[in-house]
């Protein structure tokens, strides 16, 4: 069989059910063969969104998301999505077409060195030279993407490699001598954690996205329950515990909850679990006192000691380490410490008052999240909408909050929601974006309609690039430049042009009925929510 068929067969063997992509000349042989496969292809409207959709799919299904695009601009358009997935440790397998091998390096039509240009943003990449290597490379790619610290793997395949005929031999297993992802943590270090917990008066866990990638939510909540240790989360860790869990003190960092940040300042032992202490959690390193003992548990040894000095560390898979900890019967923290934080949390409330102009976006996010089915998937974009969402969303046990934490890539929410919905068609899925980020991905409304994907969309409309406006107001003497979005189309009319029903709400009163409608409707729906352009994010969160 030819290389293209071998690729499709290998993808089938790896259990691939969906591919997000955009065709072109150099990937044509693969598309030609895909037509005969059970694998469903979702045609997006921009290559970047193929990557984001694969990311949403991966984060919900727990399996690598697959995307494929053509060479040259198709491949370079994908880079932002690869970088976004790389920063948030999302497993992707990206397949790019490439010009004929004998023309490589001659700058022919639609040639781009994609393995070279995507190198900083991929966990690994292949430029395939021999058709016979395709099955083993694909198997390896899935293995690398989905083990250890997960991430995107790129496979660049010249047209002639796709066309050449070879016997198909699929390997049974993968062995890469330079790659041995860690599983369990060192027993001695695990014992040391227990030792520290025994003498700790005010221990605190800072939970990150690593708990989701390790699929360790259940073990985590069991550990928290048994040890009675309060929890703060990073943006990526949002939802590891339900928002109203008595031990959940909220999100840390610049845009976090004051209780969470104060808890960090008062803790005597801080355990970082699957969190890399990025600069957006910057308050963390600042708030941590010298005397605070810091224990870092992460799957990636390179994250330990990179951003924060640690007292000691455990390298391992979060699920396995939690199982090890639980097996050793960890001590229970005294109620006094939890009670003190709970008291603090009670006295601090978010500002949900009605606004004179427009909708209070914080109240809107809260009210809407309460009304959504418990197992909802909420995809927040980037900008003020992300911070209002993160700060006010109510997440229950089965709910998921997806956003781009590391890269902060505008336009992520709609394609990610498409991928997430395809991974879990039974779950209510909503994308929340601003009018800036909406215009970076609105072409995907066509994808929703074409493939009949039931994703709801909320666009917070304030006519500005609100978060940049805030920076200009706070730090540049309110010198507002290039943040005015005048000339933008009406999102309601845009939706209608795609055949998607839509509505606009202008004040708090109107939102109540619309929130009900959004939860009950079948099929794609868009709600434009008018927000005053002066509405801040950087005010205190309770």
């Amino acid at each position, binding site marked *: 069989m030819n290389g293209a068929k071998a690729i499709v067969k290998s993808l089938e063997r790896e259990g691939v059910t969906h591919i997000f992509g955009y065709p072109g000349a150099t990937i044509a042989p693969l598309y030609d063969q895909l037509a005969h496969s059970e694998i469903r292809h979702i045609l997006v409207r921009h290559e970047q969104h193929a990557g984001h959709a694969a990311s949403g799919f991966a984060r919900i299904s727990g399996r690598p998301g697959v995307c494929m695009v053509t060479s040259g601009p198709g491949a370079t358009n994908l880079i932002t999505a690869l970088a976004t997935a790389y920063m948030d440790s999302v497993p992707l397998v990206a397949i790019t077409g490439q010009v004929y091998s004998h023309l490589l390096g001659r700058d022919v039509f639609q040639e781009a060195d994609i393995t070279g240009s995507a*190198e900083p943003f991929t966990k690994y990449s292949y*430029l395939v030279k021999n058709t016979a290597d395709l099955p083993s490379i694909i198997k390896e790619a899935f293995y690398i993407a989905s083990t250890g610290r997960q991430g995107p793997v790129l496979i660049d395949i010249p047209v002639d490699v796709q066309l050449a005929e070879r016997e198909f031999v699929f390997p049974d297993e993968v062995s890469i001598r*330079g790659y041995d992802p860690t599983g369990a943590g060192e027993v001695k270090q695990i014992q040391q954690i227990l030792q520290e917990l025994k003498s700790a008066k005010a221990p605190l866990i800072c939970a990150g996205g690593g708990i989701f990638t390790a699929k360790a939510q259940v073990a985590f909540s069991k550990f928290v329950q048994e040890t009675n240790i309060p929890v703060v989360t990073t943006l990526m860790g949002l939802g590891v515990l339900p928002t109203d869990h008595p031990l959940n003190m909220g999100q840390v960092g610049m845009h976090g909850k004051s209780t969470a940040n104060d808890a960090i300042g008062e803790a005597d032992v801080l355990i970082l679990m699957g969190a890399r202490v990025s600069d957006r959690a910057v308050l963390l390193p600042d708030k941590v006192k010298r005397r605070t003992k810091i224990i870092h548990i992460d799957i*990636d*040894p390179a994250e330990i*000691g*990179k951003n924060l000095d640690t007292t000691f560390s455990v390298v391992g898979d979060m699920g396995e380490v939690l199982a090890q900890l639980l097996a050793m019967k960890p001590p229970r923290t005294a109620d006094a410490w939890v009670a003190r934080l709970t008291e603090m949390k009670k006295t601090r409330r978010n500002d949900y008052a009605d606004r004179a102009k427009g909708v209070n976006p914080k109240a809107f996010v809260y009210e809407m999240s309460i009304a959504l089915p418990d197992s909802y998937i909420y995809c927040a974009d980037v900008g003020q909408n992300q911070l209002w969402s993160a700060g006010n969303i109510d997440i229950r046990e089965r709910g998921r909050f997806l956003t781009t934490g590391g890269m902060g890539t505008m336009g992520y929410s709609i394609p990610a929601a498409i991928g997430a919905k395809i991974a879990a068609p039974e779950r209510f899925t909503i994308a929340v974006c601003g009018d800036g980020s909406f215009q970076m991905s609105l072409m995907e409304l066509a994808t929703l309609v074409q493939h009949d994907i039931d994703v709801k969309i909320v666009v917070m409309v304030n006519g500005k690039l609100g978060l940049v406006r805030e920076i200009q107001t706070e730090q540049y003497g309110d010198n507002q430049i290039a943040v005015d979005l005048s000339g933008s189309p009406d999102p309601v009319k845009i939706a209608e042009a795609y055949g998607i029903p839509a509505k606009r709400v202008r004040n708090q009163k109107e939102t109540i009925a619309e929130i009900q409608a959004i939860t009950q409707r079948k099929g794609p729906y868009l709600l434009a929510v008018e927000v005053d352009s002066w509405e801040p994010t950087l005010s205190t969160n309770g």
Partner: protein
Amino acid sequence: MQHTIAALVENKSGVLSRISGLFARRGFNIDSLAVGPTEDPSISRITIIVNGDNYIAEQVIKQLNKLIDVIKVSSLTEIETTRRELVLVKVKADEKKRSEIIDIAKIMDCNIVDVSHTTLMLEFVNRPERVDLLIDLLQKYQILEIARTGTIALQKGSKSI
């Protein structure tokens, strides 16, 4: 402070570019880098001399370890390591100066590998500091060209990385 880091890597195309790219984007300052095949033709050995504090050295090792094509990484301490560099120096040497330069070559125990009416080429294999010393001694004469390899290093005794 200089750190000597040795790595065994897959001997295939693109590996060196992955490693040098990593150094550039993480802002690591590399003094020298030497690559060559090993007793196993599928493995290359890279010796890196990196300048920085212990944090940098640790980061270099951790980040190298993350690369799939890197099989093993080790930091080599100065005392237990034999380090070598090879240098070729072309010096201007007319009849008047030639014997002086030959004297230096003798004292330093280095070979004269090429001679012309106006030049001498010296070949020297030694520890990096000795190579520096030779170059310093030859500065007095006019050095026309230098080709110097990066440092390579192996642990003394039966130890290996």
